[in-house]
């Protein structure tokens, strides 16, 4: 593969993978879990 295309593809995939990892730590981390729990509590109270 041409070096320029390889470098561009590598940069793109690395950026996407890093963003996904950051989002995952927020969603599955303590802060995201607390947010989900409070949302679940609110919906069960409404029922």
């Amino acid at each position, binding site marked *: *593969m041409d*070096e*320029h*295309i*390889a*470098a561009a*593809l*590598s*940069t793109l*995939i*690395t*950026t996407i*993978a*890093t963003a996904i*990892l*950051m989002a995952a*730590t927020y969603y*599955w*981390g*303590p802060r995201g879990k607390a947010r989900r729990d409070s949302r679940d509590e609110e919906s069960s109270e409404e029922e």
Partner: protein
Amino acid sequence: MSVRSHMSAGDLFHISILGRPFKPVAFGLALVMVILIVVNIFDTGRLGDSWAGDVVAILGGISLLALVGGWWAKSQHMAEVGLLFAGSTLVMRGLFTMFTAWPDQSEWFSYSLAVIAWGAYLLERMDPHRMEPGE
């Protein structure tokens, strides 16, 4: 032992250097970043003189600054940014090697080290007992 000598799962318990928490994985990755920065600045690494090498050197520089800065400033956030960027640096290196010279040993080493870096990032970021001033 003061509370501040331990911030998260990545710190060695009861061990501090200059009164600062010590993260062995982060220390090892900082050494890897130094190697990647030097070889890519002088274009002697696996990535040659391609601009991917410059990206790796810049990412590695950000990671090294964050890792050392996080240790010096006792900042858990900064240390986590350092681990995240260390993983990104290694993934970038592995991908470029894969696209240009697959199969290659340096590619597998890069991915393996990236798993260590991002694994350490996940451990520290998602540690329910992590401590950061102001939180």
